[in-house]
């Protein structure tokens, strides 16, 4: 993780280059469901948003949360509940789910930022386990069965999302919005201060920044977006279950981010796509029962020799050879 200083002309150049890249990716996102099964794409997008939200904290704030499953699950359960019980439209359901996750993020954040580093990770893990046990017992989550048959409903009460194509474009729009919010956050003064805290917390304090407040805001944004991913996912699969709340899920999102590249904007997207593809592919083959072992192995390899991740390595390679 290095800080780069660019002069203004290089900055302009990289901005225009980035614009091109974003336009191409947007186009690819729009045509992708014509070539690839939309449900698979939606799964990738949901997890990519989840990983991007997580990366905002780890990659830009240096905060390792081991409890992000709680936010994914909360979004999913709340959205499922309000859509089924209150009969609200999907966008309202998603909004409520997201807000609840953000509120939970506020509580988690308030508690966890009282400690740093490894303690931060352990506290978030313990809190998410608390949430897991609450969801096991709470009546509205459906216990072991989860919430099944959540209706996708009609967007704004008009557009039916029952078919996969309209659902895909809805999910894609949500992803783009979430991604844009993260992009904006990272490139704002707020994001710069967050990076400063990551690089040298005592120095950020001595410069007069209220470090805890910045961390808390980052935590709330990250939790809210993770909730957004969970809410959307519950509509896509019409299901919310305890799997989303389990600590394995918190581990998976770390793996996605690590594999794709911590602290890179596209890393989590690439990582999520890779992990989801791998899981889909392996779960049908003879190696199905080895999936956790393979994920663990990827973890170990990433930590030992591949710390920049896929996107990080590509960036390094490009920098060495093309500039």
């Amino acid at each position, binding site marked *: 993780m290095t800080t780069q200083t660019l002069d203004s002309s290089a900055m302009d150049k990289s901005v225009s280059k980035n614009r091109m890249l974003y336009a191409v990716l947007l186009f690819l996102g729009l045509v992708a469901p014509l070539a690839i099964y939309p449900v698979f794409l939606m799964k990738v997008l949901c997890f990519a948003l989840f990983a991007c939200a997580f990366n905002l904290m780890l990659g830009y704030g240096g905060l390792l949360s081991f409890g992000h499953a709680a936010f994914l699950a909360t979004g999913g359960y709340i959205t499922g509940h309000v859509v089924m019980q209150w009969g609200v439209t999907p966008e309202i359901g998603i909004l409520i789910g997201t807000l609840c996750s953000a509120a939970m993020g506020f509580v988690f954040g308030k508690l966890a930022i009282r400690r740093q580093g*490894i303690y931060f990770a352990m506290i978030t893990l*313990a809190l998410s386990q608390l949430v897991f046990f609450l969801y096991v017992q709470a009546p509205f989550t459906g216990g072991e069965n989860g919430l099944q048959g959540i209706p996708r409903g009609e967007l704004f009460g008009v557009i039916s999302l029952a078919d996969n194509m309209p659902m895909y474009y809805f999910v894609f729009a949500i992803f783009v919005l979430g991604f844009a919010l993260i992009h904006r956050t990272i490139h704002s003064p707020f994001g710069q201060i967050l990076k400063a805290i990551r690089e040298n917390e005592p120095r950020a304090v001595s410069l007069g920044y209220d470090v805890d407040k910045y961390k808390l805001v980052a935590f709330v944004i990250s939790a809210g977006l993770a909730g957004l991913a969970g809410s959307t996912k519950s509509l896509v699969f019409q299901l919310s279950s305890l799997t989303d709340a389990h600590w394995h899920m918190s581990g998976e999102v770390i793996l996605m981010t690590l594999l794709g590249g911590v602290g890179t904007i596209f890393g989590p997207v690439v990582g999520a796509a890779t992990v989801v593809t791998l899981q889909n592919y392996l779960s049908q083959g003879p190696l199905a029962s080895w999936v*956790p072992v393979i994920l*663990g192995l990827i973890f170990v390899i990433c*930590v030992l020799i591949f710390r920049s991740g896929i996107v990080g390595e590509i960036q390094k390679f490009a920098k060495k050879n093309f500039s």
Partner: protein
Amino acid sequence: MAELLGFPPQVLFGQLLIGLINGSFYALLSLGLAIIFGLLNIINFAHGAQYMLGAFVAWLGLKFLGVNYWVSLILAPLVVAAIGIALEKTLLRRLYKEDHLYGLLLTFGLALMIEGSFVHFFGVSGQPYSVPQALTGGNNLGFMFLPTYRAWIIVASLVICFGTWYMIERTKLGAYLRAGTENPQLLQAFGINVPLLITLTYGYGVALAAFAGVLAAPIYSVSPVMGSNLLIVVFAVVVIGGMGSIMGAIVTGLLMGLIEGLTKVFYPEASTTVIFLVMIVVLLVRPAGLFGKEA
């Protein structure tokens, strides 16, 4: 017999006993985590998997080689410690110069691998391990029935915990360890082989986990997932106690076990969550932990 606080004393003391047993495991495991953290500055996420390995080595030993409980109690920690030392020497060692979070992530990956392989071969359902002959039966203490094996767990873990405390706080070797925790460079400059000390410390912490695993084998079934859920509770215990003090880890572990036992009597619904709730209260009141040193 008269009721105590509105509950039959058998129920109350029975749950307290279970609490004390769980507390013994929390104490053994959080002690191991604290020792490893002190010198290596990493949180050993594989601790739960190593606890499970201890139980499995005992079970496999009995099943295939006829190794009895008493031998396993010594042998299993040694075997698992050897595996731990191999991991430390080949993998963990490479990360000491990196951010400490990488150590956590590496051991997390290792835990997934170990647990996943055992699930593949043995399934998630537990295997029974019978209580050794000498420790079967129990005594009626008048106010409750005390099974001998359960008493043994408490005695054995207390002996190991306080033995470890004595070794670290009162012996020359322990002094080196404390010096290494304080300032490893300086200790190395005095001619102590710090890398060796680190390896042995990791091995010892892992051995404690495996020892707890063998102790647990006869009362909980031996299952590949027995360690991971326990470990998260132990993390909460570690946050409550703070990792600065050896005695703190032991006392907090036992205390949390008792609190959990009491919760089972008075409000069973909260028994799985009470330790996490205590953690929240401690974070609000005393963020550094009950025995924590940092400001």
